[in-house]
């Protein structure tokens, strides 16, 4: 249980990292001289904070295609992650940098009775407008904490965000197009393109039953505003409870299939070990796999950092968030002794089953004592976080109980 939590060490939040000789990963050129950094507690965890278009300074894991992580303190300050702080993850580098709203069309084709080609205006005026609060979390969120380490985008815990998504129900659209009797899966494609023709275009598919759930939306707005370009303007698929790989950005093409999707991003990428744990022993090869699915229950403490000191003898309120795949959070438990004893945390406002749920717990640190703080969320069907960290070769599905070590002074 020595898992460390990423922290933003404000003492290390350095201005002018170039001048200070922090060579590794300090970008030259565009922003070398005025970028602050955040250091995540794993090897090669230093990240420059840089503002990309329509974004505040975020942790840059990569520039092209952009991979941006939300600094963790944002989750303490907001239950709904601001659009300009929302994490960004793209697979392919040919991302449109200019979109003409007037000529943009969303096409629904394949095994349908009528092919549809709809403008944004038509989507906003001819269908019920629905809003839902939902967490969007990258399948590889927290990958950097895997031990042993695994290849992939090296996220801390900030490849997730909670937003109010507004748009139309996918099923309303599918019903308007009329599904053929043999419709089996729905495949989604966005405007992003690979750099080389031979690279598989990024597309994802859902089983028909999953696609027809009432909470699955085609969103045109996020927290009351248009989506930022880097979060999928003008439309993105919203699949509450499911990992973000299904939330296709810049969505412009929906294809109804009558057979299982055989394209790369479904058959080869985003696959989990098939066993119920979705884990293997480090180094063990995968024998059979299943597609990525829904997000297991997680919780975080948001107002304490690893190694922090708190004034002894004074009550302190730990704040945090919890979420699951959409059953809703039933309880959050809090421990100050590494999980030997637990007390109930107080749940905050309920924004819906797919949203972050705020929680808080009070405790009084004693002077000179060390505490291993932990939180454990349980959802309404009794699922809990894992007590030991699962391992798989792609670094997916982390939901172990997180620990933050602090001292009373």
């Amino acid at each position, binding site marked *: 249980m020595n898992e460390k939590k990423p922290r933003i060490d404000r003492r290390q939040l350095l201005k002018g990292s*170039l001048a200070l*000789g922090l*060579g*590794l*990963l*300090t*970008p*030259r*050129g*565009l*922003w*070398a001289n005025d970028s602050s950094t955040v250091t995540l507690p*794993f*090897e*090669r965890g230093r990240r*420059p904070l840089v*503002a*990309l*278009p*329509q974004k505040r300074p975020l942790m*840059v*894991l*990569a*520039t*092209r*295609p*952009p991979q941006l992580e939300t600094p963790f303190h944002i989750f303490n300050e907001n239950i709904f992650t601001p659009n300009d702080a929302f994490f960004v993850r793209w697979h*392919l*580098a*040919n*991302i*449109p*940098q*200019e*979109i*003409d*709203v*007037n000529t943009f069309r969303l096409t629904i084709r394949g095994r349908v009775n009528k092919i549809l080609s709809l403008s944004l205006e038509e989507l906003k005026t001819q269908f019920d407008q629905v809003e839902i609060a939902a967490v969007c979390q990258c399948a590889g969120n927290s990958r*950097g904490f895997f031990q042993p*380490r695994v*290849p992939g*985008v*090296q996220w801390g815990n900030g490849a997730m965000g909670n937003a109010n998504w507004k748009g139309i129900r996918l099923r309303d659209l599918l019903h308007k197009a009329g599904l053929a009797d043999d419709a089996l899966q729905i495949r989604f494609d966005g405007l992003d*393109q*690979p*750099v*080389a*023709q*031979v*690279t*598989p275009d990024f597309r994802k598919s859902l089983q028909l039953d999953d696609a027809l759930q009432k909470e699955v939306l085609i969103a045109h707005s996020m927290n009351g505003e*248009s989506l930022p*370009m*880097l979060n999928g*303007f*003008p439309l993105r698929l919203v699949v509450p409870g499911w990992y973000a790989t299904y939330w296709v950005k810049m969505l412009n093409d929906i294809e109804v299939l009558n057979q299982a999707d055989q394209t*790369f991003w479904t058959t*080869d990428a985003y696959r989990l070990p098939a066993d119920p744990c979705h884990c293997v022993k480090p180094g063990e090869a995968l024998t059979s796999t299943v597609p990525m699915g829904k997000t297991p229950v997680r919780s975080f403490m948001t107002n304490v950092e690893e190694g922090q000191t708190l004034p002894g003898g004074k009550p302190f309120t730990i704040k945090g968030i919890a979420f699951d795949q959409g059953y809703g959070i039933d309880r959050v438990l809090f421990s100050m002794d590494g999980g030997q004893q637990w007390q109930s945390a107080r749940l905050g406002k309920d924004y819906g089953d797919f949203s972050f749920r705020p929680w808080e717990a009070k405790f009084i640190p004693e002077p000179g004592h060390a505490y291993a703080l932990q939180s454990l969320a349980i959802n309404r069907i009794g699922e809990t976080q894992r007590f030991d960290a699962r391992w798989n070769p792609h670094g997916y599905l982390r939901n172990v109980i997180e620990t933050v070590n602090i001292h009373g002074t």
Partner: protein
Amino acid sequence: MKRVCMFLMVLLCVVGFGWGLPVNADDRKQLSIIHLPSDPISFQPGPGSDLASRYCLMCHSAEYVYMQPPHPREQWVEIVGKMKTSFGCPISNEDMAPLADYLVSQNSLQPSPSAPHVQADGEKETPGRSATQASDPQQGESLYKRHCLTCHGPGGKGDGPIGPVLVPPAANLTLIGKQSDKSILDTLRKGRPGTAMPAWEHDLNPQELNQLLSFLRTLTP
């Protein structure tokens, strides 16, 4: 048509450094525009760095390598293989091992990792630089063969081994005669966002960029 072009130019000026909020142009065009930055870091010069620049920078910035934890050699070999077989990176068979060796030299436990370090402009070690008396175009030609040929082809027509499969395809450099030196140098320095053309300003010093420009001028009729 002219009016639309004018509008676009004005728009580009307006959003140039504003990083692109959605902009209402007029009734006909309603544009949302952003400008994504070019790559901030490059591969550390060393044996095989030209391979990494040639093959890896097409699709992603060098940060992808340096953000990784130190991987054992087998892991890098597997990654290079995956880039070739799953993602179609046209790495020739003979380049596979040297490319993996370079990645190991950059980010592995053995030998000890040598991370790219930041140097002031102009202080960089540049393999192409030497004290020979060769003219700019000759120096430029050797730089071209090293860095550009794979995509743009021996005669610059965009017909290198990789060029035609790119989206958009590699540019035909025999058609850039009318571009100003500044425009060509800008492209060399910053790359072309939205294409596979990477920024070379970190790999090539100003002298080398000028030598390359001189050679490119010999390609146009």
